[in-house]
């Protein structure tokens, strides 16, 4: 093959790539309420799916009414997301895909419920017609009415422009395809419109449909079989991804990224250790962490979000933290955080940029420790798992690390240096307190270096769901109860985030009424009581149901499940292996409420606070060694 032939072959391959939509079997699809992680991925897939112009959503049969729909529809239990405008021409709000450019405009097609104009901003009204720009809209579709399930948000997730037309075709060919599309029963197939796109010697016909359906696919396939170049863009696609199963093991994925070495006399480098990520988790899945930083000034503010999914589904618990900004500004920004289309959440504020996203405590990590007579330095590089949280409520200052911007944060355990390497990973230097006065020297001694080597893939054991018998009555203490006014109802809270109103809530609570307690407070639609309460009830894996009136906190004499030997004469650094093993556990699946180092009177280890005592918890904690102290929140009432 000579050069010309190779280039010609390359052109043909790229021509095909340019015309090839996303393979439909690439999309994970869906019917049941997923974990937060499942939703995130599935929504991302939905966006890609629209971009590719081909959908692969499993659909059910719908109504027969041709004026509304004869095509199969997803069914009212499936949440959809898509891009449309909302227009009310005097007969109620409707979705519009194609708006006629008149004044006032027209084009509303599918009637809406669950919507009122207070849910959107910037709508316009002329001569009795009110309309919005194109928005991202979530909802369900029963074949007649689209029920809005979330506040519509900007910007639209779908690019309304056409895909790439086929190279080399002429307008007459495209017109023939368009004429063929015109023979289809557009209302019955829920085709919103179609258009010819001719640019630069290329042309094609794009069909815009409300939903995917077997009938639509068959119709379009029929046109393609006749040689017509027709692509389809679906306006609404399913949001939710199906969490089909979990596996018990997964191969480790070997990381490659930016790496550094510390060129500092007196320090000995240990072997770099690679920790794979992440085992599949059981419902409700891991918490998502996100961070946004102000664009207005180098240190104009940082807002972080911990979105913890709730057992049994429903909106996650959102906990915000911030630094370098006023509380008023933080609350103003929180009000602008909305569920995203391609991301879990979007902060709809042009002065803030998303700087970190990942899963809390769950990420690929490669670490290397340097030791000296004065202390240790640990270099940690991996996924974002909430590293920006170091900055919250801690003294910090900007620093340049190997030419990149970062921070030095003073923590009680010692300084932490945080920065983002060129690879997009997240890097930290965990410096022990004994070296605190040498931070700048340590940072200056950091050099970029080749990746430390190939690590042997390993297998990670996946935590299984906790076993808690629904019929067993449990008794335990919580830190309070909160109803955040977001529709989830009252939630048990073990720990509070200190804001006003406070944030918390980790387990749905049934059989509860505010008359059962005294001293609750209400502010901005949030009602809470933040004092220790003793609860008795059952747990079905999703909800704690009260079986007795709420009492004061119980006193347990045996709430410490395991009191290990707690090594004497050790330092906090000695807890690192147990702490790393603890971090590797699926803490949520095991029902862990909190875990931390434990250093007291020259003894140390890790302590764990868990909701229930289960065989799975005991088995998992047994892997941590002896220096583990466990407290259990709920114990069998008998």
């Amino acid at each position, binding site marked *: 093959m000579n050069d010309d032939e*190779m*280039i010609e072959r390359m052109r043909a391959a790229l021509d*095909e*790539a340019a015309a090839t939509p996303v393979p439909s079997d*690439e999309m994970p699809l869906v019917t049941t309420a997923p974990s937060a992680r*499942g939703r995130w991925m599935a929504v991302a897939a939905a966006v890609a799916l629209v971009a590719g112009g081909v959908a692969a959503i499993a659909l059910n049969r719908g109504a027969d009414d041709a004026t509304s729909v004869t095509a199969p529809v997803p069914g009212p239990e499936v949440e959809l997301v898509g891009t449309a405008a909302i227009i009310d021409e005097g007969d109620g709000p409707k979705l519009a895909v194609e708006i006629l450019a008149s004044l006032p405009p027209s084009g509303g097609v599918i009637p809406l419920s669950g919507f009122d104009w207070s849910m959107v901003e910037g709508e316009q009204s002329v001569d009795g017609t009110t309309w919005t720009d194109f928005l991202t809209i979530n909802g369900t579709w029963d074949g007649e009415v689209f029920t809005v399930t979330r506040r519509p948000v900007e910007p639209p997730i779908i690019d309304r422009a056409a895909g*790439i037309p086929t190279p080399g075709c002429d307008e007459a060919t495209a017109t023939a395809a368009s004429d063929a599309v015109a023979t289809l029963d557009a209302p019955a197939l829920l085709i919103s419109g179609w258009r010819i796109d001719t640019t630069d010697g290329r042309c094609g016909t794009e069909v815009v449909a409300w939903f995917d359906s077997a009938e639509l696919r068959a119709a379009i396939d029929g046109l393609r079989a006749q040689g017509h170049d027709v692509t389809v863009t679906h306006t609404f696609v399913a949001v939710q991804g199906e*969490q089909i199963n979990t596996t018990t093991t997964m191969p480790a994925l070997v990381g490659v*990224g930016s790496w550094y070495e510390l060129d500092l006399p007196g320090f000995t480098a240990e072997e770099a250790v690679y920790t794979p990520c992440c085992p599949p988790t059981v419902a409700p899945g891991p918490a998502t962490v996100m961070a946004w930083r102000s664009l207005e000034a180098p240190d104009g503010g940082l807002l972080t979000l911990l979105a913890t999914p709730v057992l049994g589904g429903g909106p996650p618990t959102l906990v915000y933290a911030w630094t370098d900004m006023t509380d008023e500004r933080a609350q103003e920004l929180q009000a602008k955080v909305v569920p995203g289309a391609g991301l879990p959440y979007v902060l709809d504020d042009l002065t803030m940029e998303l700087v970190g996203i990942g899963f809390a405590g769950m990420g690929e990590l490669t670490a290397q420790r340097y030791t000296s007579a004065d202390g240790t330095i640990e270099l940690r590089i991996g996924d974002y798992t909430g590293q920006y949280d170091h900055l919250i409520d801690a003294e910090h200052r900007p620093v340049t690390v190997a030419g990149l911007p970062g921070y030095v944060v003073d923590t009680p355990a010692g300084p932490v240096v945080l920065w983002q390497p060129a690879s997009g*990973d997240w890097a930290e230097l965990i410096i022990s307190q004994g070296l605190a006065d040498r931070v700048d020297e340590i940072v200056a001694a950091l050099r970029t270096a080749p990746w430390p080597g190939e690590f042997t893939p390993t297998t990670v054991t996946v935590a299984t769901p906790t076993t808690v018998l629904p019929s067993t009555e449990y008794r335990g203490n919580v830190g309070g109860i909160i109803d955040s006014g977001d529709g989830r109802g009252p939630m048990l809270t073990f720990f509070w985030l200190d804001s006003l109103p406070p944030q918390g809530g980790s387990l749905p609570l049934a059989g509860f009424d505010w008359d059962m307690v005294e001293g609750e407070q209400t502010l901005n639609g949030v009602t809470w009581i933040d004092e220790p309460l003793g609860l008795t009830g059952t747990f079905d894996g999703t909800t704690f149901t009260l079986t007795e009136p709420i009492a004061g906190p119980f006193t347990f004499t045996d709430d410490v499940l395991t009191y290990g030997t707690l090594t004497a004469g050790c330092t906090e650094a000695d807890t690192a292996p147990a702490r790393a093993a603890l971090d590797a556990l699926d803490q949520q699946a095991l029902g862990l409420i909190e875990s931390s180092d434990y250093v007291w009177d020259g003894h140390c280890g890790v302590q764990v606070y868990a909701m229930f005592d289960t065989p799975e918890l005991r088995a998992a904690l047994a892997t941590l060694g002896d220096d583990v102290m466990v407290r259990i929140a709920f114990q069998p009432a008998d």
Partner: protein
Amino acid sequence: MAIDFDTFYRTHRADAVRWAVALVGRRDVAEDLAQDALDAVGRKLAGIDDPAAYLRRTVVNRCASWHRSNARARRREARANAGVPTVYTQSTDEMLDALARLSYQQRAAITLRYWADWTDDQIADALGCAPATVRVLLHRGIAELRKEIER
């Protein structure tokens, strides 16, 4: 004469997507990256002398960023979807696979020159190098591509 965003968008969108396809080899990704680049350039139209050149640079940079992050993103997706039967896009075309194994600069030079019909000067401007360097990239890139194809 300054142009409005709508005109700019309509004029350049198809080309931007085509360029991005050349650089990443996938239409779905290319559409997203082109959209991103168009938005970024569109916001600055009033202050840009040559929007088309600026768009070329932006598309090339966006695609370079995508290549840098793609490997990690793929691993993250793999992890997040572990347990879910998901098929990842792996090109079945050996030419696209071979292009993917070239350095980004070589790939950009070859595909933008021979498929997107950019001039050497335009490629040099977008890659931030001299036109002579583009010619070297083309020469070496073709040789590398042949090696990859014949491997």
